[in-house]
């Protein structure tokens, strides 16, 4: 089922003329005739959940914005940096006006009169497309003072970032937009109460906002019939990695993951099998290529129950030609590079995880290091202002859980190559015990080690 992707490649869809021919901005006209409260009720009825990663219901988030006259803001999060995710890029590039329409309707519903699109700096072409589209919409009177003769006034600014994964986190994004370093803020207060320039702020992902005109067109209750009961609507899923046909596929939430990976994306190259896959960007705990995991329904709740998450809807498939140790190290290095450094558990935890995984890879480690790595990851989770550290800890922890045997086999093989001998079981000997048997050849009598 294609809603957002229907005729997405129509020539000139990024221009106002073609978009209006397709019935564009009709929903804006309809919304402006409705009470803002009615628009909000439609969003609540649709139960559309945020497509950026957290999966929070958009209508609920909108209802948290205080009523009354004050400076309120709407920010569109187009800082799509989650590894494996590239859906917003294609949507913004090919159909910018639907995003703009969604933003205007959303701003009308919450009473915001200033809105921003925070787009990552690397998306230069997409930002130019958006700039041109905003200028067209402004010329036609969809943006500006008293839109289409109503009382609603809205300004829209396309703000380009400059390359920082952390700015995809909503409060870090607000800091970056205010012209500071992108550091997350303490929550609460949540942005809905105190966000950009200390005003109530609604932050939503590109895909979520593009669903707004669709919800109004279909009606909230009708929209809620698509997908499953708790995961309504369609979702654009980015499939990448070791698959034959990588790309964005729009699906109805709740189809089986096997259908997605093998049916739409063609599965792994011939002769290879799926070893592991990230169901929702690199921050999601990995799942294995077992039938049990591949037959899971692809929706928010089923994946959460299986110990992972739908996240941004980005599937990365890893086939059996790759070592899980390399994948783990690559993942950890990304988060080490992108940690903003504000909270200690994340700043230090990501760094030490990389160091320990490097030891595993080069063959200096013993299986006990895996336990230490897992415990470092456990101590990151829930102890920072934002979830960047958790986003490293969860996939690394899940890789150690699902592929512990492979990690251990890799350690043994690498130790063998280095001539270090088999790793012997370690006991915690206390800090004053002196140089331990960690690198001594096998055959040392473990009973000689004082406990």
């Amino acid at each position, binding site marked *: 089922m294609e809603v957002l992707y229907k005729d997405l490649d129509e020539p000139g869809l990024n221009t106002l003329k073609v978009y209006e021919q397709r019935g564009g901005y009709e929903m804006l006209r309809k919304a402006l005739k409705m009470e803002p409260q009615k628009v909000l009720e439609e969003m609540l009825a649709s139960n559309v959940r945020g497509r950026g990663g957290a999966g929070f219901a958009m209508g609920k988030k909108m209802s948290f914005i205080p009523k009354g006259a004050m400076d309120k803001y709407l920010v569109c999060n187009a800082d799509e940096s989650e590894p494996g995710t590239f859906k917003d890029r294609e949507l913004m590039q090919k159909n910018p006006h639907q995003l703009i329409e969604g933003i205007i309707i959303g701003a009308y519903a919450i009473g915001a009169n200033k809105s921003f699109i925070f787009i990552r700096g690397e998306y230069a072409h997409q930002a130019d497309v958006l700039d041109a589209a905003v200028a067209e919409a402004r010329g036609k009177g969809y943006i500006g003072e008293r839109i289409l003769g109503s009382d609603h006034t809205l300004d829209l*600014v396309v703000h380009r970032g400059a390359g920082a994964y952390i700015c995809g986190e909503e409060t870090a994004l607000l800091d970056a937009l205010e012209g500071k370093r992108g550091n997350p803020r303490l929550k609460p207060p949540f942005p809905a109460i105190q966000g950009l320039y200390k005003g109530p702020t609604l932050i939503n992902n590109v895909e979520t906002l593009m669903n707004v005109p669709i919800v109004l067109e279909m009606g909230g209750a009708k929209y809620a019939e698509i997908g499953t009961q708790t995961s309504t609507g369609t979702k654009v899923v980015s499939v990448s990695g070791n698959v034959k046909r990588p790309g964005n596929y729009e699906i109805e939430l709740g189809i089986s993951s096997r259908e997605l990976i093998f049916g739409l994306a063609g599965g792994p190259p011939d002769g290879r099998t799926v070893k592991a896959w990230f169901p929702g960007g690199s921050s999601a705990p990995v799942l294995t290529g077992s039938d049990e995991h591949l037959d899971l329904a692809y929706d928010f709740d089923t994946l959460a129950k299986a110990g992972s998450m739908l996240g941004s809807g980005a599937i990365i498939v890893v086939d059996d030609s790759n070592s899980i140790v390399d994948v783990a190290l690559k993942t950890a290095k990304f988060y080490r590079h992108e940690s903003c450094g504000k909270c200690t558990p994340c700043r230090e935890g990501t760094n030490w995880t990389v160091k320990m995984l490097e030891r595993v890879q080069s063959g200096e480690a013993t299986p006990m290091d895996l336990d230490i790595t897992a415990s470092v990851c456990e101590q990151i989770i829930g102890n920072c202002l934002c979830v960047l550290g958790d986003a490293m800890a969860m996939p690394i922890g899940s890789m150690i859980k699902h592929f512990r045997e492979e990690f251990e086999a890799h350690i043994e093989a690498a130790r063998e190559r280095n001539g270090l001998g088999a790793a012997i079981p370690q006991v915690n000997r206390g800090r004053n015990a002196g140089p331990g048997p960690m690198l001594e050849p096998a055959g040392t009598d473990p009973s000689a080690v004082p406990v």
Partner: protein
Amino acid sequence: MAIDPSKVRRFAHGSRVPGWDEAADLTKDPAVVPDPATAFVPEEMRREIEGEMAKYPDLRSAAIPALKVVQREHGWCSPTAIEQAACVMGLTPAYLSAIATFYDMFDTVPVGQHQVYVCTNISCSLLGADELYDAMLSAAGDDPRFNVRPFECLGACDIGPMASVDGEYVGPLTPEDCRTIVDDAIEGRPVLEGKQLKRRKKAVDHWKEA
């Protein structure tokens, strides 16, 4: 990418920070907002930065756009470039330096004019991005006109392994494409026209045609 110890710049006593071990000169005042009377800012640049400032309720929001303007003019965020932006915005150079050092796309050392970002994140590296990066390094790594660097996920895993050349996304690349990229960039032609992302159709249609 692992940090190569030989590439880490070291100063006195092995410190990574220049001037760390030098005593502060207490007779000197800290750098303040540059005086418009003495700091030279080209008229064009001033107008562009002021245009950015006018878009936001708080002028500091224009810090990133302003640094982009001066970086484009100077090639990197040099002390002069930062001073010029600070002068127009009425901020201290220290404030803008803090921004410039935080974000990946600002260069605080002189670099080549052609930016080549090779994505080396998970999806691309599963498809051979590390070999591609090595090939790109041997094609243009020593060329002072190029700034070749490994980059985190650029958001184009459907064309992995890929690279962003002066903002143009191209992929899927093979190591042989690196030479063409270098030649196209030097000649000022569109880079690898057949492999540009913006010409690609949505996945369902793209693979039907292939």
